[in-house]
């Protein structure tokens, strides 16, 4: 018997892989030492575990283990990377380039930078969610110190042309940072081949624990430094003070090791399931995929069902844990800014569902999800005056709506 509700919100967080938990367990109990304690075996054991985790992580993203700065998660890493570069390179310039579809951890950090006197360019995206390389090129100035563009988008899964972006940034003497939260562990990310100077990522999006993440900071060609954003004991080569979260770090390391081992098989299986889900749901009339279908993370599908309201739809798919493009918690509705940036009208943005599959998603769950969504959309459309008008061939734009 299928257990309900079915979890398909893996872009929000993934369950912990039992193998990761197993690796972490000793470090929550008997191996409890502080990795910074140099004087006794308790500390040495903890430090050894942390160093091993660095190697596991480095193996996944092709960096040197010393280039990993542990943090509390991707939000902290984004903050540390952007603010840290802004402070460290203030002599060189004060201009940062990002995109409108970035995560709030990047956008709000950039807003903060603006308050500090920095200048930020927010690049628009096309209908697929991709930035234009020509726009980027045009936005580069001698004062540009950092280009920060996410690897794969959390709402649509759209993958940006990372190598090309990095090349443009470097050509103009700027650093390139990426928020790799959704991409690391899901698709091959190689900081050397991709030309990444800084990268934020987190454990809990790749079957690791919450509360631990990392910032990759390049050590050579060029040697990148960030100003610490927290004062203290000078851990992590002075870039991030605070006692290391040893069990969490062990979990992140193990999660990275498993992702590397299983990436190919996971990608194969997940993209097949995702494509089937998408194909089936697109048999519903007036349903549309949001974001790029060509350049996309393998486990994500974001689909809008026209003439159905998002919150009503969420209520209709109560057996599924999914996300909606609508944050309807007040009279003034706030459709997803990411979908709006793709050029979606408010109503299409509101009526979207985001499906995020995981290593643990089964074919049986996908079968159930397909039928459940189809039933809900069909039922709501039978109840929808807009659907009736559409079926009668009435142009909804020709109606003078009473705004309220």
């Amino acid at each position, binding site marked *: 018997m299928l257990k309900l509700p079915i979890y398909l919100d893996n872009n929000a967080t993934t369950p912990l892989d039992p193998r990761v938990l197993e690796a972490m367990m000793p470090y929550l109990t008997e191996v409890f030492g502080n990795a910074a304690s140099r004087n006794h075996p308790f500390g040495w054991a903890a430090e050894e575990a942390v160093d091993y985790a660095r190697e596991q992580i480095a193996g996944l993203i092709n960096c040197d283990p010393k280039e990993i700065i542990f943090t509390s998660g991707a939000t902290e890493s984004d903050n540390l990377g952007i603010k840290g570069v802004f402070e460290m390179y203030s002599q060189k310039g004060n201009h940062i380039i990002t995109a409108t579809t970035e995560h709030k951890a990047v956008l709000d950090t950039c807003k903060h930078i603006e308050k500090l006197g920095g200048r930020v360019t927010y690049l628009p995206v096309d209908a697929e969610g991709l930035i234009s390389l020509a726009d980027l090129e045009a936005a580069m100035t001698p004062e540009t110190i950092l280009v920060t563009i996410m690897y794969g988008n959390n709402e649509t899964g759209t993958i940006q042309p990372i190598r090309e972006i990095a090349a443009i940034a470097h050509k103009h003497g700027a650093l390139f940072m990426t928020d790799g939260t959704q991409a690391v562990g899901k698709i091959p990310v190689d900081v050397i081949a991709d030309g990444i100077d800084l990268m934020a990522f987190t454990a809990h999006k790749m079957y690791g624990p919450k509360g631990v993440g990392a910032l990759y900071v390049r050590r050579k060609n060029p040697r990148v430094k960030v100003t610490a954003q927290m004062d203290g004991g000078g851990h992590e080569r002075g870039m991030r003070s605070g006692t290391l979260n040893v069990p969490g770090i062990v979990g992140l390391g193990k999660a990275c090791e498993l992702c590397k081992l299983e990436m190919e098989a996971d990608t194969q299986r997940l993209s097949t399931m995702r494509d089937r889900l998408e194909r089936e749901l697109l048999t519903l009339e007036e349903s549309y995929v949001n974001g790029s279908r060509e350049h996309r993370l393998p486990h994500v599908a974001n689909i809008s069902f026209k*003439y*159905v*309201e*998002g*919150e*009503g739809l969420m*209520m209709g798919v109560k057996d599924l844990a999914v996300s909606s493009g*609508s944050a*309807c*918690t*007040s*009279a003034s*509705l706030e459709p997803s800014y990411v979908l709006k940036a793709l050029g979606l*009208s*408010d*109503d299409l943005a*509101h009526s979207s569902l985001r499906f995020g599959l995981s290593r643990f998603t089964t074919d049986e769950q996908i079968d159930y999800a397909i039928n459940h969504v189809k039933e809900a959309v069909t039922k709501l459309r*039978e*109840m*929808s*005056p*807009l*659907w*009736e008008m559409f079926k009668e061939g009435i142009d*909804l734009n020709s*109606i003078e*709506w*009473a*705004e*309220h």
Partner: protein
Amino acid sequence: MAYSDKVIDHYSNPRNVGTLDKSKKNVGTGLVGAPECGDVMRLQIEVDEATNTITDAKFKTFGCGSAIASSSLATEWLKGKTVDEALAIDNMEIVEELALPPVKIHCSVLAEDAIKSAISDYRVKNGLPALEESKSHH
């Protein structure tokens, strides 16, 4: 967000979903809300002209669960009422009956608007003046 049992009931088993023949003189149609606001309600009444009583009511709603429940409840209440009684329905009665949270009060306002708009349409069709502007327009 947690919905009340009554909202869930109306959402799961909506009463009186459908369409009345709007070309009939004794059918009044109200269409309120806007797609970009996330709510559109269409509410229709059929009136027995001899007794001025609402004999049938139908709705279709594009919106959240609370909007669907508000309009479903409105159609239940309308049936059997005279037009004047229907005009007296206040949105706060819907809020109370469905236990709507503050952020969903606008759904009840929209339902009251839909009732008034349907009655107004009926009046105009029958040579009476239209009703005043509705509550939610501002």
